[in-house]
């Protein structure tokens, strides 16, 4: 019996049919972005609040509205908890959503999360009624602390933002998945479709990516590839993979072959 029926992603009690969350940074044009978002099938997409004016016409927010995609504001570009909290509040006011992708980065060169500032900001935002989705390093302990702080999901990186290096520490991602009671969303570092499939096979509930699509030679084609990869990886996880073996094990039995041949 196949088990490929409805399998929504649930974050803070809200359901999403797609397990691919998109970012918008890096697209060469609004037209290309729109094609890519459409091809990805995404239902939730992040927008850097420091880089848009919510009242401007023709902006990325208009593109998302036209595509019927829910906006997830993020705090990209913030280096301190103070900046991130302020940015989240401005986003809530401007967009009327209390959801936020929380991003507090440590330095411009690696764009790695600053764990101390991140946890600090998460605590403040949860206390203020936000649904917080923190972009975090792949540290299982930090992921647990963020969950304990009341975050609605944890979003560990596969590798640094925009690097396309894939999932550098799959073991840590598995450890995070094993312990988490909130959705685990692999965020950052994915380069191509197999990276997204691997994230889902490791047990992540969703994947968040931007650069791998927006800076691909054909963004819409890569977006379609990512959509299929996320679906394939999720199905593989649900199906349950076979154990690995050292030696071969024939898929059809050898028994009876000799007598079968004799009849030819």
């Amino acid at each position, binding site marked *: 019996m196949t088990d490929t029926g409805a399998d929504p992603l649930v974050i803070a009690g809200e359901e999403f049919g797609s397990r691919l969350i998109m970012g918008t940074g890096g697209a060469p044009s609004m037209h290309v972005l729109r094609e890519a978002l459409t*091809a990805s099938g995404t239902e939730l997409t992040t927008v850097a609040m420091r*880089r848009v004016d919510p009242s401007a016409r*023709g902006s990325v927010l208009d593109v998302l509205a036209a595509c019927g995609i829910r906006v997830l504001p993020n705090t990209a570009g913030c280096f301190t908890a103070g900046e991130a909290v302020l940015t989240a509040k401005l986003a809530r006011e401007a967009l009327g959503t209390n959801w936020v992708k929380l991003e507090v980065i440590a330095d411009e060169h690696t764009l790695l999360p600053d764990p101390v500032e991140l946890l600090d900001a998460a605590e403040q935002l949860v206390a203020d009624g936000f649904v917080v989705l923190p972009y975090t390093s792949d540290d299982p302990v930090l992921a647990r602390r963020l969950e304990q702080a009341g975050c609605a999901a944890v979003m560990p990186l596969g590798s640094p933002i925009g690097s396309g290096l894939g999932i550098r520490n799959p073991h840590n991602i598995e450890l995070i998945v094993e312990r988490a009671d909130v959705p685990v969303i692999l965020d950052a570092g994915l380069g191509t479709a197999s990276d997204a499939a691997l994230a889902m096979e490791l047990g992540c509930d969703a994947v968040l990516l931007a650069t791998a699509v927006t800076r691909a030679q054909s963004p819409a084609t890569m977006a379609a590839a990512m959509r299929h990869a996320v679906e394939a990886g999720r199905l593989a996880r649900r199906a349950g993979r076979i154990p690995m073996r050292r030696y071969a094990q024939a898929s059809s039995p050898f028994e009876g072959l000799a007598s079968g041949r004799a009849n030819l």
Partner: protein
Amino acid sequence: MDIAIIGAGAIGLATAWKAAEGGAAVTLIDPAPGSGATHVAAGMLTPVSELTYGEEPLLRLGLASRERYPSFVAELEELTGLGTGRRTDGILLVAFDSDDLRYVDDLRRFQESLGIPSEALTGREARRLEPMLAPGVRGGLLAPEDGSIDPRRLTAALLAATERTGVRLVRRRAAGIVVERDAAAGVRLDDGTEVRADRVLLAAGPWSGDLDGLPPGTVPSVRPVKGQVIRLRTRAPFLGRTVRGLVKGSHVYLVPRADGEIVVGATQEELGFDTRVTAGGLWELLRDARELLPGITELDFAEVTAGLRPGSPDNAPMMGATGLPGLLLGTGHFRNGILLTPVSADILSALLLDRPVPDIAAAFTPDRFTADRFTAEVSQ
């Protein structure tokens, strides 16, 4: 034929000149000619180093315009006696670190696949061309046929050319389009008076959608994309040609002029009609410029400006008829307005005068966004 043109940036000015030269009675409407993106622009003439995947039609338009530039500038100088500071000494694209070099190599392969000549250089070779470059630069690409122009001198010359050819300049803001019998019949000014015209060209950059009287959907989305630009001055020779740099993934360019000005740009910000100059914008430009050319800190600061590029959904200009008969659109030139000025003036003046339009214009009509052909292809 009476023609009204709204917007006296580079595109509006050049089209007004060419349409008047072609025999039309042209009225050009702008409260402050040449004060928008044209005033801020650095004036790189570089279809080659701006090449982006999926934007090959735009490359071809840029190449056509670059080829048109020598005769365009010669006509302009002959008519007005004014120079434009055009340079044809090539543009050097340099990569700061190994990641940047991978991007530059990819760009070179893409250029090669399209038959565009560009020359790969090692870091040493790049520094031989431009000795002020930081010792660590990893390599680069020379686009030998690219160059630059001074948009402010170009504007002054175009303004003089419109005067010489009898264009009437109305220094007022256009408030609306006069529509009669479902067709454009002129322009209503902010003082309530009207400029009657058989044809109206809307070349008002990011403000092109803001006029009263436009039926909904007449003008496709043109959005403002802010750019902050710094102007420095040098007393000693500093740069021999325009240098574009990719510095840890971010872009910066430096455009030198014969009089010692060096233009450093530009940020690209989606912040609506906001022209504030910000600490962060200046810092990012100077940070990257200094990584690339450490000696930059010794130069004199001259000016900082912020302007609004007219961005179309696919970064390419929208030139041609709109849903309203008699109203034409000539905007959406985004980062390439100065480069595309000659070819746009040829296309738009031909459209206005009912003359044969260059074939290349077919890919840039405003109605191309109505059919989402790309999306249909991918979803199959």
